[in-house]
């Protein structure tokens, strides 16, 4: 009996302990300064994307202005850090994100009371209008938003605990990692409460929710305020991380980024926005090494996911959970067979994508960089120099694009048949 509860406890807490250990050792695995910076950004984005998913994934509210709560909290954080340092108030940096969280909650309540009266398309538009309102105000209220240069702050000037001044990036990493873990646990716990279930009910059918005796408006309002709280913590950590709060923090690009991160990761599963946040952070740092127009590829990825994988990357992964049944040998052999089929399909897909990318890059080069001459470094790699004045790369790119596409379509039936065989096999061994 006690063994049973032990293993059940280990199952529910084990994943969090493992996550904590992973966060602890991650900076030693990726020990360069650049990767520490990347991990800090990813941690902030994880909190932000999960808070966004409290709206889109859990409650079914599509917001185009979630950066408002992130950005305003960042400004409040920067101002209060400056105030704390100036007056020598003994509050350590570790607790400063609480200020951001309270600010996010405050603005969430303030704007939420106006905007959550309706769901659906109307809510989406109001969120956009409010975001524009706040962003345009940033040009007027200069004493709060600091105009063009923003509000800068110094995280090392606050009270030191155990001699840590949070100057080095590694110390900031642990600060962000601790807050990320805390917020992820809290947001996960929230989905398991009766309130979390009511949010899902409001997403599925607000009319029924009213029949049962709940007020969907109020559920939306609470969810919105709490999402503001966590977005505020994320914004606060962002201000601590770069020691600056700028008007762009409340801008449309920031709101768009979190929407993309959550949706690409998949809004139907709790883990989705985490995956999406990590992927989007990595892509936005790495892709710019390869191309100037990486945002275009980003947009194409987004549209592709909307059209072909509406449950995002986590949805694609979760589709494979159904093969994970029966004896362990059968599970692995099924997944290996599927993997083989995917590799076969991936080869023409990669050829198709390479053709498309080459074509896009050549169009970009010809239309924007004619002054640099016809030679183009494909993907910014000098060993991949392409002559855009010659017809050969254009024809080659077109052939790769179309041949890759048709070969890719040709492999679909194979993948589908492997899929169905594995599914039948899994159902047999599961029953």
């Amino acid at each position, binding site marked *: 009996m006690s063994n049973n509860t032990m293993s059940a406890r280990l199952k529910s807490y084990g994943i969090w302990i493992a996550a904590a250990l992973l966060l602890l050792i991650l900076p030693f695995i990726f020990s360069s300064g650049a990767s520490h910076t990347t991990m800090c950004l990813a941690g902030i984005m994880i909190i932000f994307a999960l808070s966004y998913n409290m709206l889109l994934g859990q409650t*079914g509210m599509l917001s*185009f202005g979630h950066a408002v709560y992130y950005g305003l909290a960042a400004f409040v954080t920067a101002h209060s850090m400056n105030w704390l340092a100036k007056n020598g108030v003994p509050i350590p940096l570790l607790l400063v994100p609480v200020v951001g969280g309270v600010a996010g909650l405050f603005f969430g309540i303030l704007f939420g009371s106006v905007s959550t009266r*309706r769901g659906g398309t109307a809510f989406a538009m*109001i969120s956009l209008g409010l975001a524009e*309102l706040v962003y345009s105000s940033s040009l007027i209220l200069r004493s*709060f938003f600091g105009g063009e240069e923003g509000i800068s702050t110094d995280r090392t000037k606050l009270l030191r605990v155990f001699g840590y001044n949070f100057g080095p990036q590694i110390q900031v990493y642990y600060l962000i990692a601790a807050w990320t873990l805390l917020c992820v646990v809290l947001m996960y716990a929230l989905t398991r409460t009766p309130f979390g279930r009511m949010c899902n009910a409001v997403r599925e059918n607000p009319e029924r929710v009213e029949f049962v005796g709940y007020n969907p408006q109020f559920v939306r309002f609470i969810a919105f305020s709490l999402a503001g709280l966590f977005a505020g913590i994320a914004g606060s950590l962002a201000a601590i991380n770069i020691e600056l709060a700028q008007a762009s923090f409340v801008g449309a690009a920031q709101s768009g980024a979190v929407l993309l991160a959550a949706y690409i990761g998949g809004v139907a599963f709790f883990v989705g926005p985490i995956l999406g946040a990590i992927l989007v952070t990595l892509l936005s740092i790495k892709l710019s090494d390869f191309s100037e127009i990486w945002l275009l590829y980003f947009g194409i990825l987004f*549209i592709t996911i909307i059209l072909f994988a509406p449950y995002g990357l986590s949805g694609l992964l979760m589709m494979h959970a159904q093969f994970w049944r029966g004896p362990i040998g059968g599970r692995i052999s099924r997944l290996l067979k599927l993997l083989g089929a995917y590799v076969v399909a991936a080869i023409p897909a990669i050829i198709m994508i390479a053709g498309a990318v080459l074509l896009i890059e050549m169009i970009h080069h010809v*239309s924007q960089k004619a002054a640099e001459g016809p030679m183009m470094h494909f993907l910014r790699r000098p060993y991949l120099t392409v002559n855009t004045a010659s017809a050969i790369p254009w024809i080659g790119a077109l052939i790769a694009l179309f041949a890759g596409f048709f070969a890719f379509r040709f492999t679909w039936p194979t993948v589908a048949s492997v899929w169905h065989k594995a599914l039948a096999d899994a159902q047999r061994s599961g029953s």
Partner: protein
Amino acid sequence: MAELIIISTLNGVLYGMLLFLMASGLTLIFSMMGVLNFAHASFYMLGAFLGFQISQWAGFIPAIILAPIIAGGLGALIERYGLRTVHKHGHVAELLFTFGLAFIIEETIQMIWGKLAVDYRVPSFLDFSAFTVYATNYPAYKAFMLLFSIAIFVGLIFLLTRTRAGLIIQASLTHPNMVGMLGHNVPRVFMMVFGLGTSLAAIAGAIAGAAFVTQSNMAALLGPILFVVVVVGGLGSLWGAFVASLLIGLLQTFAIASDWSLSKFLGSSYTPASGTILYDVWTVTIAQIGPILPYLLLVLVLVFRPTGLFGTRDT
């Protein structure tokens, strides 16, 4: 003062008519499919850039004819092969699709034409002063834009109320199933309306691009205002969109021409300390808060009259 009022009214009506060219398509598409096309302003931008490119190759007149046709055709294709595919995943997926589309159109335009403004100019045969009000010369091109957009407006009203195609469109708005029963291809009507709406936006872009700045951020600047127009006017109401377009056009034009601020209004009897938020509010001029006014109006309308000015359905 009278000079300022006349010029501001003319400019405001012009801006309002351009807004209406876009808002009419947006609201038609919305009332038909329930989709708020996030990328509508992107088609306006596409119209401007196509207009610029074609005017470089073939001159201004072919540009304002061909650019809307190309953009509208593209819009119809996107409806057929994109929007219709995501329709089964619900309205959120549709809205997200148009959001992604806006993103891609902006990035594609930056890929081809760059981030800086292109040199899209008023054609030389319209580059003179049409008339003079007191001491201000009113450019002929602006007069042309005004007349052109009024002509399109009249044409649209004629199309919707006096032709068979307009009857089918109107019927499809309210009774799509019945129209389908009568043997009309409702999905094709939807595709046509989407194409028509996007080409109206592209017309506005092709003629406005030459007078204003043609740059890859113009959709991001205008898109939110367009949403304000259709919400303030009442979602799905063409007359509402018309009135709201003119209202916002006039509001913004008059705001820009005004340098009143609280401190000027109340005199210098009281001045808050410099560097505080109160000081910012005290000294800001109406011209500076011009960009905020539409959004303030939006919030006010949503709080006090959620159906919009002429809307029948609750947003």
